[in-house]
């Protein structure tokens, strides 16, 4: 076992960790917002919207994330330069990067899984609580904002923690579209130094550490908001 390379590669490792965390945070935050819309559309949207949200979830949950990522990066990415004016616009430096495509595809994928979790949680909120809020004269939007959504998020919290860990474990796929994330750093170290296992081990320790961090954080939040029925 030879870990002497760590001293020269640690800035790269740190940068990779930042990219990984950034991908995770972006996809979870935006994915969660999208998931709320998708879950509500499935529960009481008009028929067309309901059908659309349901097929979105089926399609994104039924295909591998790797294919979605490649479809976006290679497929849509190869069509983008055909859009007139886009190449010279201020958006191009962002749209050129693999990171953008990774962030978008991870967000869309996370939203599909999270929407299913939220759908279940929204249905699990006791009916009496919603009826009570309605009886107080709250509008539908206010019931959603004050009672229905917070209650369901609390119910779903343990599952959400699990989903975030799953999302973290999916982020190494970004290396296939040139993102310099943690895994990509391990790959680069392997190419430079011909060490196979040591970089993988170091990077794995990082991932396990991040997993522990996420689970610990959720434990603390769960303890703060105790659940009583």
């Amino acid at each position, binding site marked *: 076992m030879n870990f002497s390379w760590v001293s020269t590669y640690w800035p790269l490792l740190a940068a990779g960790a930042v990219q990984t965390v950034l991908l995770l945070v972006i996809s979870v935050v935006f994915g969660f917002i999208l998931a709320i819309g998708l879950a509500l559309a499935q529960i009481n949207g008009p028929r067309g919207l309901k059908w659309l949200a349901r097929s979105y979830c089926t399609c994104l949950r039924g295909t591998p994330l*790797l*294919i979605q990522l490649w479809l976006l990066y290679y497929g849509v990415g190869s069509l983008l330069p055909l859009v007139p004016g886009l190449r010279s616009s201020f958006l191009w430096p962002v749209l050129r990067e693999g990171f953008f495509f990774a962030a978008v595809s991870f967000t869309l994928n996370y939203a599909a899984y999270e929407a299913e979790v939220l759908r279940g949680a929204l249905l699990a909120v006791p009916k009496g609580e919603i009826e009570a809020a309605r009886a107080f004269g709250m509008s539908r939007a206010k019931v959603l904002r004050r009672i229905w959504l917070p209650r369901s998020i609390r119910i779903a919290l343990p599952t959400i923690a699990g989903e975030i860990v799953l999302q973290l474990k999916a982020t190494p796929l970004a290396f*296939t579209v040139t993102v310099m994330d943690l895994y990509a750093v391990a790959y680069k170290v392997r190419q430079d130094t011909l060490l196979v296992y040591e970089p993988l081990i170091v990077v794995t320790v990082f991932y396990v550490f991040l997993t522990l961090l996420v689970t610990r954080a959720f434990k603390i939040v769960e303890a703060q908001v105790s659940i009583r029925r």
Partner: protein
Amino acid sequence: MSSALSLLELLSPYPPGWGGVLLSGALSTIAISLGAYGIGILIGFAGALGKLTGGRPLVIALDLYTTAVRAIPELILIVGLYYAGTDGINRVLLAAGLPPIEINGFVAAVTVLGIVQGAYMTEVLRGAILAIPVGQIEAAKAFGMRPSLRFRRIVLPALIPNALPGLANLWMSVTKDSALIAVVGYQELALATRLAAGNTKHYFLFFFAAALLYLAISLVSNVIFGSLELRFRRGQAKNA
């Protein structure tokens, strides 16, 4: 030349169309998934029984296995096991004075994914066994059934309905995880698609087609697991 072909021609199953490459990729995806799933079930049963009835060192070792596999990203596991496996076998051969061998990509893929599946299977099957009412097993013991007979006649039929939802999820995840094998270079659907797309420059078309093939695999599997569940739950009281 490729621009002269229409989209339909590109997808035709015979050359110069790439449909055949995609379809054989899909077949190897299914084959890899079935193989890995089978190995996973074997490891899962052994692991679950080991965790439930084994001695302390065995339980600790199994805990280490399931925790490690579930905490490490799939891609890293697959790449790591792929290299460690092929490397390990060749080192053993070298130590025995034999020439190194080229390990069959299919076997490597199935083994690696099987080991990953096994960890999840262990937990699913352990939960399913624990969910069997104790009275049923006590009754079997009271009838004087040996452990092997008890397992075959009572535990196995009783755990299947409990385990089916988890098993269905694992099948879905193995069909999708098999796409990761593309990263280590064995040609299944994902890599075949990349090949076709790279050669023809019709990236969108081919990745879309591949997505549809994966979707078809999941939808068909959904139907199969739905009817399996219906069959194994026959005779059970239905929830209102």
